[in-house]
């Protein structure tokens, strides 16, 4: 195995391979394969019914798939779900709290339930409460907390045992803008602390604030899994602008190495996917200049997560139509 592959696998804290999950009358996941790197935040997005929650529950070891494998922190979740749970924190979309317990009791219970010894329990509660800014609420009963604070407590319960991986299903649902901002900051803080997060949400603008990667599911299949920003080796969308019109610009670009999905080609500009690093981009620019193209600008298009999502789904839809026609 190549060293690059070794590194890829060793950096992956969640590995999903060929996951198939069936409900009695329909298949929810079709051979889903993905790897999630350590200390990243992956936005799990897709239309309703795409299989996001099912995928999260399979990773959490709460559901048994029909086929495939899931490993978290090197542990086979299907073979050893209970051991794997020690490395996972899971916050469901509709979570519950023990409303008649105080925040301190809720945290103490989850610390004990997750195997934290008696001596370390109080320290864990204090540390987690501080992290989630709940120190002043420790003696308040959970049932009297606001929606945002309940969310914080639920996350605190999920991370009190310092899991490697945190799975969050629609964590911002029902939160006001301020609470959402706080949540974004909190998730970034957890990532900076070395945790790996997979966040399922419909609110793409908010996911963009903190996500490092995007995993798009559609009809139970992975449509795209890519870094969102700042990875020079990833496929990027570039925009070329010429100083004067040149006929056949689209065709000229399509033949170049690393170029794909040329779109919006008119005689003076075009956008395309480029699968190379900055050196390769430099080589492409030299190549285009050598070929006599009057290049005025070659820049990376800053697309919002929403744009990437829409574009990828649209492309997947046309691929599907093409496949269907074939």
């Amino acid at each position, binding site marked *: 195995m190549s060293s690059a592959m070794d590194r890829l696998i060793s950096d992956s804290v969640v590995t999903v391979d060929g996951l198939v999950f069936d409900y*009695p009358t329909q298949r929810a996941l079709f051979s889903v394969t993905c790897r999630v790197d350590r200390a990243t935040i992956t936005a799990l997005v897709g239309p309703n019914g795409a299989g996001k929650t099912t995928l999260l529950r399979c990773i959490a070891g709460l559901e048994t798939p029909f*086929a495939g494998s899931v490993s978290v922190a090197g542990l086979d979740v299907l073979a050893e779900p209970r051991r794997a749970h020690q490395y996972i924190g899971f916050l469901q979309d509709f979570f519950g709290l023990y409303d008649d317990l105080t925040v301190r009791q809720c945290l103490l219970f989850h610390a004990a339930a997750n195997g934290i010894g008696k001596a370390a329990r109080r320290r864990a509660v204090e540390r987690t409460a501080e992290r989630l800014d709940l120190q002043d609420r420790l003696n308040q009963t959970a049932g009297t907390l606001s929606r945002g604070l309940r969310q914080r407590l639920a996350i605190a319960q999920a991370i009190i045992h310092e899991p490697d991986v945190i799975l969050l299903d629609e964590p911002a649902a029902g939160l006001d803008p301020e609470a959402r901002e706080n949540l974004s900051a909190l998730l970034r803080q957890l990532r900076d602390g070395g945790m790996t997060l997979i966040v399922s949400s419909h609110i793409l603008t908010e996911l963009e604030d903190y996500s490092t990667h995007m995993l798009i599911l559609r009809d139970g299949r992975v449509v795209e899994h890519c870094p969102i920003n700042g990875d020079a080796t990833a496929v990027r969308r570039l925009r070329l602008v010429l100083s004067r019109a040149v006929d056949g610009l689209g065709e000229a670009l399509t033949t170049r190495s690393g170029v794909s999905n040329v779109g919006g080609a008119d005689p003076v500009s075009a956008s395309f996917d480029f699968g190379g690093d900055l050196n390769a981009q430099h080589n492409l620019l030299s190549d285009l200049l050598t070929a006599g193209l009057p290049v005025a600008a070659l820049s990376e298009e800053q697309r919002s997560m929403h744009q990437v999502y829409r574009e990828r789904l649209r492309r997947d839809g046309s691929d599907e139509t093409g496949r269907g026609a074939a």
Partner: protein
Amino acid sequence: MNPEFMRNLWSELSAHRLIAMPLVLGLVVAVAWVGGSAGTAAWVANAAIGVLLILWGARLSADSVLGEVVDRTWDSQRMSAIGPWAMTWGKLFGSTVYVWYGAFLCLVLAFVTTHIQGTGYVMSVPRAADRLLPVFDWWLPVKIFAAGVLAQALALFVALLLLRGRPSKLRLRVTLTQALAIAAASPFVFGGSLFFSPFTEISQIQWYGIDFPPHQFALITNLVFVGWAVFGCYCLMRLELQCRTGFLGWLCFTLFLPIYLAGIEVDRLGALRPAERALDWWLTAFQVTLALTYIAAFVEPKGILRLRRWLHDLATGSYERVRTSTPSWVVSGAICFICAVAAIALSATGADAVPGFAAFIVALMLFAVRDIALLYALTLDGRRRRGHLAALVYLAVLYVLLPALLAGAGLDDELIRMFRPELGGDPLQSTVPVAAQALAALALAAIKWRRLRPLGDSEQPAAA
């Protein structure tokens, strides 16, 4: 301390509730005393133990898991490091700790009021339930306490069973579970005679030649079934917490129940000859295991996914996987088959062979195959509630309405035997039509299976 038990202590034993319970109970007993006598107060205190432990305790116990699902805290418990045994007893005794607190207070009140009165109700001596003797009869609270634990353990067991089907309307099911547990545990409170022979007074129960007074036997039975109920809870909790759990527990219970029930002799059996008693033993075992097969088939989650996994495991011959994926009704059915063969063999060698006995037993087995195949055909698509209801309706039509219609039309008994198992008659006419029905039901299930099967033929099941 067990975290689940600790959490329940925090939830259940607030200062307010700790003060309220003795105040309310004291008031109730005082009213009974003022309105009657210290003896009345003692009776009320004993009755309150039953109300607290059986009526209320069963509800709390069922709610300890179904309530978690309703409140959406169950998945976080399933992901915790709490083991299945700790979770079982943490829920069983943690969720009911408040009613146990009340029950012990009632016990003290009953003891005190009995001594003040100077007489007590003696329930443990047969035919003396209405006599007042100058003693405090410990049997009564002991029986109620034992029945209380049984009701609570059964309620938890049924609640865990219900969870396996991922049902809706959970609050309603808490009430249903509570009612079932109360119905199962209550007879133990009222004594052995009522439990074993509701319509006649019996003075002695023999179990494999050992004599027991009925009330003692009822208490021992109660405690034994408490053990099985708690063990059942543990097994189901293992499944919920995703520990590998095979059919061994159910196999043990399927072996235990016929052995236990077939050993009970109430008056009549003592007169039987040894050969008749052996046949009677196997016949009882057959009936019990057949009933267990039906119960398991109805209660266990079915659906194409489970069936597909089991068939795949059988095909690949992995014992470890087969152990965990085999449906419980298959286990009971296999024991039932052995009992049927033994009963047929004994009846064939006996001096007083009953005509058509073997055909009757075979017909019963074939009816079971038909019914279970029909049940699968109606539930393979995962629609549990509707499928089970439809199966019950069809079985009622087949077992009750059709025979009644045929009998009303004055048709031959042999024709009625096609739909209702009855002893006697021609062996071929008793079995062949039932075999045809069983085949038809299997074909129906196979058609449904084929219709649903395209979902996942290409992949191999995961190794969970």
